[in-house]
């Protein structure tokens, strides 16, 4: 098991932007690769485009079978023909984030010099520090490349929600409607702390090799798996864990005082082991740091200022049992939007499924988001 090799490379559809991207850190990534998928048809005046932003470990395969795991798209219950984000009506785009490992520029891709020449090795930990705003700028370059001036909507949950907020704050004229879901305007100390445990797990795995694991062909499987296990606990609520597993034992009715007796243990291990087959450890380090740096208020000189005079309409939604991005964070955002006299809708969905709820079948959330998108389309005359 410890000798797991890196997954075979997959061909992702991607756009190469020759001029590259200047990062918040001042560094230049040239050329910039943006891997993306789209669903539906762009209309003649290019006004029906919706951008979906994915979360930390998500990717661009939002509404189709995943090429490496074979699983349905991560938001296939929300994005598709006749669904709340209706691909019969809208042109839906989802791009792999900058720093990701599904074809966009990131630690797993070939390192380039300032002139854009390939150096014959992956970036690894030499990939520069990036921010959520860098991710959004990369997406903006793709959207510009597609000739789209204004997106009908930008929608995302968790880290995707952070990108939505960054889109609205940085490119307000390019976003007609924004739906930041289950997120916050900054990463809290608790959020950062959990990420740090995950990073420490990866870095303490001898197979990580100081980030140069591509040299051995192995991957820091144990560290990445532990990182995923810790993170996965934060995505669920106590009630959800109790409902799913309680104190149920593995294949027995009495405690035997052997290892791995509880069902929740094998569940977490399974989560960890499937994750390492599809995700890159250095990408995990890069992206979690970008989330930790995120603080919209500091970036824009105050929250109200980030949105002052915004032409964008918002739907903010949170989930009652989400303790990673609790409703109080969404309420802070809503109050800042009210202070900016923005047109904002806000609901908290009652659920015991924790942070994960944004990905699951939550009918009230789906109805609300569908109504919000349909309302925006109606007001644009689509």
């Amino acid at each position, binding site marked *: 098991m410890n000798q797991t090799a890196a997954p075979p490379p997959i061909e992702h559809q991607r756009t190469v932007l020759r001029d590259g991207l200047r990062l918040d850190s001042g560094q230049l990534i040239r050329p910039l690769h943006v891997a993306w998928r789209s669903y539906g048809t762009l209309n003649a005046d290019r006004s029906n485009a919706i951008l979906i932003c994915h979360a930390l470990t998500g990717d661009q395969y939002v509404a189709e079978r995943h090429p490496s795991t074979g699983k349905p798209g991560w938001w296939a219950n929300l994005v598709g023909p006749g669904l709340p984000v209706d691909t019969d009506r809208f042109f839906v785009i989802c791009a792999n984030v900058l720093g990701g490992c599904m074809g966009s520029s990131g630690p797993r891709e070939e390192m380039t010099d300032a002139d854009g020449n390939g150096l014959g090795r992956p970036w690894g930990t030499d990939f520069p520090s990036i921010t959520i705003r860098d991710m959004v700028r990369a997406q903006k370059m793709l959207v510009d490349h597609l000739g789209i001036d204004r997106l009908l909507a930008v929608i995302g949950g968790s880290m995707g929600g952070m990108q939505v907020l960054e889109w609205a704050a940085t490119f307000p004229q390019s976003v007609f409607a924004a739906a930041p879901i289950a997120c916050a305007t900054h990463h809290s100390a608790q959020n950062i702390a959990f990420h740090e445990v995950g990073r420490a797990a990866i870095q303490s795995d001898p197979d990580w090799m100081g980030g140069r694991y591509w040299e051995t062909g192995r991957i820091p499987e144990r560290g990445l798996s532990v990182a995923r296990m810790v993170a996965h606990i934060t995505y669920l609520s106590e009630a959800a864990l109790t409902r799913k597993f309680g104190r149920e034992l593995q294949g027995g009715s009495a405690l035997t005082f052997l290892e791995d007796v509880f069902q929740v243990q094998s569940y977490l291990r399974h989560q960890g082991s499937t994750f390492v087959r599809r995700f890159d450890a250095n990408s995990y380090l890069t992206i979690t740091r970008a989330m930790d740096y995120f603080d919209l208020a500091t970036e824009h000189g105050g929250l109200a200022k980030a949105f002052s005079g915004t032409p964008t*309409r918002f*739907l*903010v939604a949170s989930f009652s049992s989400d303790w990673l991005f609790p409703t109080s964070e969404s309420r802070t955002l*809503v*109050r800042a939007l*009210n*202070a*900016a*006299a923005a*047109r*904002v*809708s*806000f*609901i*908290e*969905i*009652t659920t015991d499924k924790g942070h994960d709820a944004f990905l699951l079948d939550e009918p*009230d959330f789906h*109805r*609300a988001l*569908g*109504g*919000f998108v*349909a*309302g*925006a389309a*109606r007001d644009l005359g689509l």
Partner: protein
Amino acid sequence: MMRPPAPVQYVAKNMRLDLRLIAEMIPERARVLDIGCGDGALMAHLVTEKAVDARGMEIDMKEATEAVANGLAVIHGDADTDLAFYPDDAFDYVVLSRTLQAVERPREVLSQMLRIGRHAIVSFPNFGHWEVRLKLLLGGRMPDTETWSRPWYETPNIHPCTIVDFVALAEMDGHVIERWLAVDERGLKAPWRRSVRLANMFGQQALFLLRRK
């Protein structure tokens, strides 16, 4: 001061009476905040009939979700705490229909309404109605009427007031009453149009249009 209200083109048949009367007071293209908007019936009416820029606030999550699903800009929020976050003069009209008697601090809510809006429209059930007075006088128990139908131990209406009480509060806090009317449940406005005291006796619902001094 006040723009003349546009004539009502169309009135939703199943819309609550006080909402229909409120809609008549709001001119086209106004910026409106509807506090306690429920599922957004008034907002939807104002948007389609008067091209109003309507925002809503609702404390009941189910109703707020319904309104958002209908494409309306509604936030889940509480009038007692959330009005403070809006800037001055954000709206032309701030509406509070049948909610004043249920808020924690009605006086503060009224002041906030007239800070963030140039006008406030307030409707409330009149506790001074003769039936209420008679039931308390003769039965000696909390009145149980068509309007006040919940028992005292579970009513959300913690701050009932009469029309005379409301006029006195407006005067005390320097709010100008531009228009007012009292109606019974069936919407008959006469015959106590002029007299506050008569309205206080016979009106089941009161509706006030206020502005700042």
